[in-house]
């Protein structure tokens, strides 16, 4: 059962999950979305942040990086396998 659910989750991530980008993170990546690789080590929000920082070191200069999972701010230990929608949230500046 454990193995089965693990495979399901991996499958979800590989099924073309994309991270939506806004503001400066969109400028750094140079596009509006970032496709996630088929990488079984990408299990949590923290894994995702590390992967993004590795791919785009300039993200490390930002004041903060948040991840929203299904329109909610996510904690670092939150799993991302069941996510329907993921977005990278650079420091906000509305108002």
């Amino acid at each position, binding site marked *: 059962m454990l193995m089965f659910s693990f495979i399901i989750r991996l499958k979800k991530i590989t099924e073309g999950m994309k991270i939506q980008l806004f*503001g400066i993170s969109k400028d750094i990546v140079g596009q509006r979305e970032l496709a996630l690789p088929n990488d079984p080590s990408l299990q949590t929000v923290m894994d995702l942040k590390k992967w993004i920082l590795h791919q785009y070191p300039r993200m490390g200069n930002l004041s903060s990086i948040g991840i929203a999972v299904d*329109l909610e701010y996510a904690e670092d230990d939150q799993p991302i396998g069941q996510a329907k929608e993921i*977005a990278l949230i650079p420091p906000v500046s*509305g*108002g």
Partner: protein
Amino acid sequence: MIHIKLVDNIVLDEAYSYLQDPEAGGMDLFIGSVRNHALGKDVVKLEFEAYEPMAISEMKKLAQQAIEKWPLKKVLIIHALGEKQVGEPVVVIGTSSAHRQDAFESCRFLIDELKMTVPIWKKEYFTDQTVWVNAHP
């Protein structure tokens, strides 16, 4: 009693009409607009971008929190997106209540929180560069 919107252009009369309530004696409106300088330099224009569904969801949460903390009749949050010139309104927050203290306190709470949590980003255009506000320490 909650009115949340992302718009191209803010219309103030719409805000007043919505907030007006026969049982409310007072309303407080905060209006943020484009300043002509930042970082000691002239701002030519601004551009706002939002993660729209999440911004709406976060603004609704804030309005809900305000309604739980203060006895309010109406709560309104309208944020403009796209390009804005110096002087144009970019955000309007309004609350109405029977007693004006509640309107003042809740309005201030909402703009303070909005600036911290709602996924909207502001790009300042100077004559020589553009800057995403708050992006860097």
